[in-house]
């Protein structure tokens, strides 16, 4: 049964949270034992998970800088999780102090934490909303109070879409968001995939099983499937690629990167 909008979601910290697990992968302590336990299990199958997360952070950082360089000063980061460090508002506001950032997450603990972190920053807000209900995001007063959706926005869907099952219609949700954005807007997206993981699929699938057990299924999608999230947008060079390959800051040899950093794909699309 669909939960009515005004009915609160229960808080159960005995259940692992993907945001807090992500924080743990990145060496943070914003997590509880249940989170760490699940994360350690996932790492038994994919020891390089922290490197994948790190590659995500690095990609996001480069993409945000690219957006600022393209003249964008509004950011909508959906699935922002626990802000550990190097967050969108830090990166964006370092490059452009006037940049405005709206974070969205559906995990109440992540939202409460973000509220604490963002206190005093009048150019960054956090809204409790769910990517599966894009209409509520677009109508959220916190977001519409900060961002002007008639002007270009960089929409960040970093490491979030792989937590949305097909039954919840991720393509329709992303399409609705794409539709709502002004021309010139960017879609910044990363997504997990079996492609690029330096392990046999059967082994990596153990991680998927861990996430399934904590009722936060991890959906691996192919390059082609991930590409469809950009429908109607022009891909910014070099397209949808392994995260380290997307506009590296310095020319580098692949050997320098951890092999796990090449798991999954990242890309940026632009609305004409």
């Amino acid at each position, binding site marked *: 049964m669909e939960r009515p909008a005004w009915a609160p979601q*229960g808080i159960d910290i005995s259940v692992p949270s993907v945001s807090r697990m992500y924080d743990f992968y990145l060496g*943070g*302590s914003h*997590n*509880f034992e249940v989170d760490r336990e699940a994360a350690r299990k996932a790492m038994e199958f994919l020891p390089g998970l922290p490197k994948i997360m790190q590659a995500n952070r690095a990609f996001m950082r480069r993409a945000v800088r690219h957006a600022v360089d393209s003249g964008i000063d509004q950011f909508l980061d959906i699935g922002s999780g626990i802000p550990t460090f*190097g967050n969108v508002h830090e990166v964006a506001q370092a490059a452009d102090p006037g940049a405005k950032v709206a974070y969205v997450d559906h995990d109440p603990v992540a939202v409460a934490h973000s509220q604490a972190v963002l206190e005093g920053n009048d150019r960054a807000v956090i809204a409790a909303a769910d990517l599966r209900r894009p209409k509520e995001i677009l109508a959220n007063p916190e977001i519409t109070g900060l961002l002007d959706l008639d002007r270009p926005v960089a929409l960040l869907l970093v490491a979030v879409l792989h937590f949305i099952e097909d039954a919840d219609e991720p393509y329709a949700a992303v399409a609705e968001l794409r539709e709502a954005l002004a021309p010139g807007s960017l879609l910044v997206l990363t997504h997990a995939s079996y492609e690029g993981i330096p392990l046999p699929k059967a082994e990596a699938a153990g991680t998927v099983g861990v996430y399934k057990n904590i009722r936060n299924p991890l959906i691996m999608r192919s390059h082609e499937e991930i590409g469809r999230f950009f429908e109607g947008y022009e891909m910014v060079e070099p397209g949808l690629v392994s995260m380290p390959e997307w506009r590296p*800051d*310095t020319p580098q040899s692949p050997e*320098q990167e951890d092999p796990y950093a090449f798991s999954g794909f990242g890309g940026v699309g632009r609305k004409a």
Partner: protein
Amino acid sequence: MSIPAQASGEPDAEPDGPEGRLRRFARIWSRAIFPLTATSLTRPEFEQHLLPLARELNGILHAHPFDASPAQRIGAALIDAHCTDPDALSSTLGVVDSYLVLYCGGNGPGPLSIEDGRARCARIQHTLAAGFTGALRERTLAEQEAIARSALTARSHAEEALHATEARFRAVFKDAAIGIGIADLDGNILEINDTLTRMFGGLEHHVRSHKVNEWVHPEDSPQVWKYYDELVRGEREHYRVEKAYYRNDGTVLWTNLTVSLLRDSEGRPEYQLALMEDTTERRLLNLRLRYEATHDALTGLPNRTLFFERLEKALTAQEGGRFGLCYLDLDGFKAINDSLGHAAGDRLLVEVADRLQSCATAPGEMVARLGGDEFVALTTGPDTAEEVHELAGRILNALATPIRLDGRELSVRGSIGIVEGPAGERSAAEVLRSADITMYRAKAAGGNRFQLADAEADERAITRHGLTTALPAALDRGEFFIEYQPLVHLGDGTVHGAEALVRWCHPQHGVLGPDRFIPLAEHTGLIVPLGRWVLEESVRQANFWQERHSDGGPLRINVNLSPTQLHHPRLVAETVDVLERSGLEPGALCLEVTESALIGADDDLLKPLRQLAEMGVDIALDDFGTGYSNLANLRRLPVSVLKLDRSFTRGMQQHPADPVDLKIVEGIVSLAHSLELAVTVEGVETGAQADQLRRIGCDTAQGWYYARPGAPDRIHSLLLADAV
């Protein structure tokens, strides 16, 4: 820091100079720990980030006096750069141990002995490790506290929201106008609201003492429990039914019941939620309204609406279905109503209704009251051809026993029109009209009988019906006109006068003669205004002729009076009025009255005629010889003219004339003359007839031999011809 920090991006450091060596140390350090960090910095950025730390290490190594404590900050700075992995510390210590003295040993202001260098380097490592650990502990604690506080905040938000939600739900539950109940899947009732308790009669334990599946009621539709079973099995999310319950006092509660399945967070069926709306009163009201809308208030029989519903159903029945309809109208009911009063009339109708009801008790039979004293009985099924006659017979039989009313016995009879036939051919309205017409035929045939509809009789009646309903408007629209047929003096062949004959120029049927519509006008009473119009028009015309024909003596006008007009109380007054307004002398007007209208006439009826005769108006006895010609009666009547019916002159058309007819006419003429009555003959068509009649002594004649009825100006031209 003893060595001033240089700008980090100094490009021109010599590879073997102090700055160059410092950078090499930083690069080695960066290479060692970058893979262990979670930073989002790039390698070069990270290396740049470590360079000031390397410079600080260099400063500590060479400081005089030596003090390792600033190395704590280096350890803490690693934590700030998100190098929280314990391996980042051991790698850092390894790099410091192996390379700090090697690359930075010669960077100081003075030489550093190997021993001193090693000792200082070891102290730096100890302090750095302590700084790292301390900072990591601080950070860990801070983050743990932050996340715990966030979790608490989130939980208290959620609890507040939950509390608000619960309060809202509680209010909805408690104050809802509909009954709400929650039960488990075994049917045990867990919670009910006050409204539900009230609906069930006000005793909570009465409701709670029964499981949901024990609330069976005889009127439950089969779906009610099928849906219930499906729902508790988790195969159905909700259902909505109309369901009856027994209240604790045994009365029935009718509800609109909606039941929903509630599942737990895992999706397993857990509870059933029932929402009930009390529809008892609405249902009773609906039943009553439906009953009232479909039944006759006086007799309790089904009314016209319900009858039509049934008839329509019978007429749209499956192939092979037939229907039989009896349309009953009581004979002479109006007289009973008029003489005994409406209350008695109503009681009579109730008794009749009861008797009729007892005649139609078989399945497929029904009796209804259409209104007034009109009833219908319907029978359906395959054998209605026989059954409908039996039904009609039973009805007449049932009416045969006199009805006792206020101490008297009234004989009630009825006329029945029967329509019988297969379904699917005619509409209900057509069937009913045919039955109505047929009933009138039964009535016209004397009543107390039934007749079966036949298409031809229907057709005639339908035309008659059409003309009857069109009559009033026809008079308003001036569709009537008058033709005049000359009356000729048999003695000298001069035009003596004319008879006014009314015609109806009907928009569809063309010109209609009086035989087509006068009886209808007579029946509806329209004859009174129509007759007055004819009188006015004819008198006006006669007056016109008189003025034009002043030399030819007075020209008379004959106008027909119908029986109804004879009875009309204002006959004399209106005739006088018409004459006075036109200026025509009364002697120029002759009113023709049929012999049959005067049969058995008493003095009251003759009085107006006498008054008119005394004024000088001639009264002619029309169609004489067709009725019961009471010759003795002739003396009493105020008539001055006898008009012999055309049947007498028919025998004179042949040559030689029928001697018997001749004798009869001769006798009548002689008798009339002896009573001082003039004789006019109608239907003269040949010269021979005219000769004979003249010889016999008839006074005036009319007929085609002289002229057919025609427009008034034709009379005028006849007069002119006559005068020449």
